[in-house]
């Protein structure tokens, strides 16, 4: 664990949606190759980057993720031929739209990682973690956690 975490400091929490065929295998290769990369990332495996609904990304931000990474096969290498190409349009529009609303561009990132690019995966995670660390904890769109009282509200059960 890093020094910051031992000292009780803030560590970015990042969710990564990785496609089963390329990016997840790339992450696996990074592990098998014993490459070091930050431990701030929680991986969710999806069948294809085309499987990712923009609402997944919005939901991750709502649930307090400091960063979201989406990664699939390089264009032309999709296991399902064109899943990532259809997804690319969706991602380009979503990224532009979230930026437009004022959400920091570094919070939501998209990339391509193939199954043979373990080192690219490790470098990518380092970059994303660095970007998000520079931005600080997410505050926009984050839901009030369950059980936390809004300021000034009477405690639960108070008469």
């Amino acid at each position, binding site marked *: 664990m890093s020094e910051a975490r031992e000292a009780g400091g803030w560590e970015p929490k990042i969710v990564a949606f990785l496609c089963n065929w390329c990016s997840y295998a790339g992450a696996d290769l990074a592990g098998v190759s014993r490459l070091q990369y930050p431990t701030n990332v929680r991986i969710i495996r999806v069948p294809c980057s085309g499987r990712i609904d*923009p*609402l997944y990304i*919005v*939901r991750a931000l*709502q649930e307090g993720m400091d960063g979201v*990474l989406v990664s699939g096969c390089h*264009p*032309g290498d999709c296991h399902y031929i*064109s899943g990532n*190409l*259809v997804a*690319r*349009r*969706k*991602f*380009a*529009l*979503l*990224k*532009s*739209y*979230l*930026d*437009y*609303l*004022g*959400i*920091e561009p570094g919070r939501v*990132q*998209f*990339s*391509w990682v193939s199954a043979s690019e373990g080192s*690219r995966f490790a*470098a*990518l995670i*380092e*970059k*994303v973690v660095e970007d998000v660390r520079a931005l600080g904890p997410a505050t*926009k*769109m*984050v*839901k*009030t956690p369950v059980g936390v009282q809004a300021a000034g509200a009477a405690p639960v059960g108070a008469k």
Partner: protein
Amino acid sequence: MSQVETKLRETIKELLDRGEVDLVVGHEAGSLPLRSRPVFIRDAADVDRLVWGSTCSNNLATHLPRLFVRPKNSRAEYAPPTVGIVAKGCDARSVLGLVKEHQLPRDKVVIIGVPCAGMIDIRKAEESLDGARIIAAQEEAGTFKVETTAGEKVLTLAEMLADGCAECSHPTAPEADVVIEGDARPAAGERYLQVEAFEAMTAEERWDHFTSEISRCIRCYACRQVCPNCYCVTCFADQTKPRWIGAADELSDLMAFHIGRIFHQAGRCVECDACVRACPMDIDLRVFTQKLPKDVEALYGYVAGVSAEGVPALLTFSENDDQGFISEP
């Protein structure tokens, strides 16, 4: 009564008499001045209820898909009706979009194109009256004689023109089957001015505006109900497995609803501004809905609903699509 209105009534009477349509969706005078409401004409004797003018802002395409729903549990052979629709540019674009999405049979819809001079924004009319109420109004060639609680007044279409209509790229119906001739407004040269002004603001200013606008949302879902593109049987906002939008009074959920709703219109929105007019809280939705059509046109060269040809932008791809947004380690 304007010439266009007379011609419209005659044309629709003929279509009904000849049996070319079973039903026509049009506008009739609303119960309040400067308002109109949709009317469904099945009988040629009712055509005099139809009106046409700058108060007919409703997007009538919203009402079409439900007219083609096959009755459940019926053994009778299903014969879909032929439906005529009084269509401005935006109504016709919505119809063509719905045809592309297989929600309407094109051969069963008769698009009756009317020349659109732009629609009034009733809020602008109310603002210009300093609190006086409108009792009655009479429209005549671009001007409105308005009788108010503070006396009579003349308002012009130009001063009340809706923001969306000022930036309209298609004031006349594309691919109309029947065309009513008349003076339509010219297609706007400069578009997306509001979006460009918003883009020029800083991220914090944009976020503050988004927050302050969306925090007024009361979740009546009128923006969704009135949208011709929102025909899903179960909307993501109503789903419970998974529950995308929490039930609590939570700003984050309001934002997620609006992002979800607006994003579902990517490459489909025809910029009719029905959602803007429907909002009871006067939320500035336009600045948020217009970004996607602007991006889709800039990135993929696709404009929704202008022709029955062409695949919607998000149902297809090109190998050379822009990928400047991709993060490189």
